């Protein structure tokens, strides 16, 4: 259910941004999803395939999903740490931080058109 509504949202957003006409020459969509986004790439891919069968405009479009790890920034040390086991602490000073700089994103990162 969730994945389906996300794919719908991607299609709607792209139509809004580029206009329905341009969507016909769309070739590739690149998504960037953080591990905290609650989006599972494999399931999203399945949802996209189902979507393509209903919406022929997207039938030849390919979808690439990049999953990004969780990174926090410590303001004290000015150091970025990758979060392990959901312990949100700075690797340098050990202080907690909830300043997430990567891993929450749900982005349409890039799109490619084949304009003939």
């Amino acid at each position, binding site marked *: 259910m969730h994945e389906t509504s996300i794919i719908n949202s991607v299609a709607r957003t792209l139509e809004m941004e580029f206009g329905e006409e341009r969507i016909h020459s769309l070739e590739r969509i690149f998504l960037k999803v953080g591990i905290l986004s*609650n989006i599972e790439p494999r399931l999203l891919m399945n949802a996209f395939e189902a979507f393509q069968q209903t919406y022929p405009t997207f039938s030849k479009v390919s979808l690439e999903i990049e999953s990004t790890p969780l990174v926090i920034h410590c303001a004290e040390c000015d150091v970025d740490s990758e979060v392990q086991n959901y312990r*949100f602490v700075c690797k340098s000073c050990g202080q907690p931080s909830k300043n997430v700089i990567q891993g929450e994103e749900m982005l349409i990162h890039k799109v490619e058109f084949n304009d003939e």
Partner: protein
Amino acid sequence: MMSVEKSSKAARGNVQCENTNIHLLKANDYVAEIIRSKMKETSTLLINVTSSAGSGKTTLMQKTAQRLKDKLKLAVMVGDLETERDADRIRQTGIFALQIVTGGICHLEAQMVHQILDQFDLENLDLLFIENVGNLVCPSSFDLGEDYRVTLMATTEGDDKPKKYPKMFLTSDLMLVSKADLLPYLPFSVEAVVKDAREINHELEVIQLSSLNEEGIDEWCEWLLAKVQEKKST
């Protein structure tokens, strides 16, 4: 706000590439901001109540209504996949409540909240609760324009939940350890659940409560009253 930076990169053959970096939930966040500014105009505190199914959200809404309805004007909108049952239960306490039936959708989106917002008399409302769909996963991604997100964590769910559903606890302001009256009968450690939750979000406030024997209800109501006061003075 709706504008997006687009930089056209050099064409590779006849392939045109555009860097977009558009947030997938941009449409949702746009509506959430509209809700936020409306609530600011009327100084109405908006609280998004989330949790798993069956952790006691509706019972807490009933108890809160009974305690606070003479002290302030409050109302509830409640989301479920089907039925009007929760809104009925809340209305029995004498406050205004509306049901959002999502028809299978596992979370509330800002658009759904915005659609029924006009049916609430916001000018004369100090506090509006949004009781979200019972689910610790999807609701965490959707901003509803709330001032605070409050997550119930029932003792019957087991004390290992925060690390399993980290985003919900990262985005919450207050965790209510609910059904505390059952603690003597359950292998549940409040200390362990608070430790795990605070490893995710060190700013998370915690109140242990029971809607049945009323433990912690005073503290919860005082928290709410303080936040209502804060909202009015800004």
